[in-house]
């Protein structure tokens, strides 16, 4: 299972992330950290009228944390804050192995991380960006 885990889709988002850069017009920014593994991301959003107009991240971490952040941004840019939060909830359920197939569908490429549900040590890496997103929107 793990052998096939670093699939093209994860590797691609890790090595050639679309959203890994500074965001000049950001109006929301939050740092998220996994002390035990050293994953460290800084998430920035530009939100207007409750809609995520743009987003980006910077930071360091393992392929899973980096790819997860990039796939997340692919998914939530253009969505409303509520939609983003409910996608985050679906993502958390998927990582716990509790998501319905239609929820995983909804997560598009981020669904590639569903195997993490069998890898307890990597759960924190996968959810870091999503937790940061949720905290950022809700506070």
């Amino acid at each position, binding site marked *: 299972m*793990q052998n096939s885990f*670093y699939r*093209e889709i994860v*590797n691609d988002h*890790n090595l050639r992330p679309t959203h890994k850069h500074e965001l000049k017009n950001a109006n929301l920014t939050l740092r998220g950290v996994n002390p035990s593994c*050293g994953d460290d991301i800084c998430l920035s959003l530009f939100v207007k009228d409750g809609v995520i107009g743009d987003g980006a991240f910077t930071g*360091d971490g*393992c392929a*899973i944390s980096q790819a997860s952040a990039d796939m997340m941004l692919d998914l939530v840019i253009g969505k409303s804050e509520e939609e983003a939060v409910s996608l985050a909830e679906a993502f958390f359920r998927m990582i716990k192995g509790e998501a319905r197939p239609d929820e995983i569908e909804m997560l598009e490429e981020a669904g590639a991380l569903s195997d993490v549900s069998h*890898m307890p040590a990597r759960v924190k890496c996968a959810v870091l960006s999503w937790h940061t997103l949720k905290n950022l929107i809700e506070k």
Partner: protein
Amino acid sequence: MNTEQVRNDFPLLAANPHLAYLDNGATTQKPAAVIRAVEDFYEKANANPLRGLYDLSQEATERYEEAREAVRGFINAAAAKEIIFTRNATESLNLLAYSLGEDLREGDEIALTVMEHHSNLIPWQQLAKRKGLRLNWISCGRCGVITEEAVRAAVTDRTKIVAMTQMSNVLGTVNDVKTFAAIAHEKGALFVCDGAQSVPHMPVDVRALGVDFLAFSGHKMLGPMGIGVLYGREELLSKMQPFLFGGEMIEYVTREDATWAELPHKFEAGTVNAADAAGLKAAIECYGRYGFHEIVKREEELGEYAFSVLKSVPHLTILGADEAAAHHGIFSFVLEGVHPHDIAEILNADGVCIRAGHHCAQVLMKTLGVPSTVRASLSFYNTEEEIDRLGESLRTVRRRMGYAE
């Protein structure tokens, strides 16, 4: 040493021929003799030691005290009462920080190295915070070498304690604790030696080294998980305040106060872990059976081989010394462009067990300028073939992570 035969003594290794267990710095595998010794205690001698006046409890007490004597012999302490059984090296070191801390005053200094494991760092750091003490850091170069000058620079007339590991759990370097203990003593300071990594891999003689205290864990030296050791010079231990209270560590108790039992009991509160002590004795006997000389020789051989294999992997950098012998079987490395956790994941898929992370040495990581590393750590029961698999798996990592090569 016949490695094949040796591996047959270890049930987990024998049952998993395709697993390359290279995380021995974290914990070692257990020979059947150790597992059996624990079992045998429960099946033939189980009673609360020290407290009972019947034969079974006497038997439990004897096995426990024989284990103490075995540990004494292993590190050549002067007397069995200088051996305190604890849960692990971490508890031993915390015991020291709490108990020695009682006598320290604001402005006193503690010197410690930047390469300490958190277990020999945070207890002193938090003690310093509570009591207004000063921490003097002994630095090391990128090779992990601690020089006499660095020690002299950090140890002053106000220094009361010097805390230092004998072997770095990240870089594998061995510190010259004999010389540094002498420097501490010159200045009137006590020398606390963390032997968690050294005691399992090299003969350690506390009297030859002249250290005042030595802490180590059974589980890193073939023994069970629930037992650790604190060695301390009798003269010092007998003056120190106890750390944990209750059980056989008392003499008299009134409502107002209590007096303490003699060494070593003063420091062993509550029901002791006699079963795991018996397991540790069996582990020490394994060292005797295999021969410490043979073990060291074999680990040197394997270390040389691992060093050359790792050096040959493209994009890989070994941290610390650039010669095999200085690593004592512990190799921390990074692979360009790949996070250590991803490496661990891929190696795991290939049946190779290594560690990735900060190795409980965040201060050293900062000094080395890396957030985390991969660490392979050897034991005499490892094989060249396992090291080959480590190398082969590492060669594929970048490709599997999507790099062109």
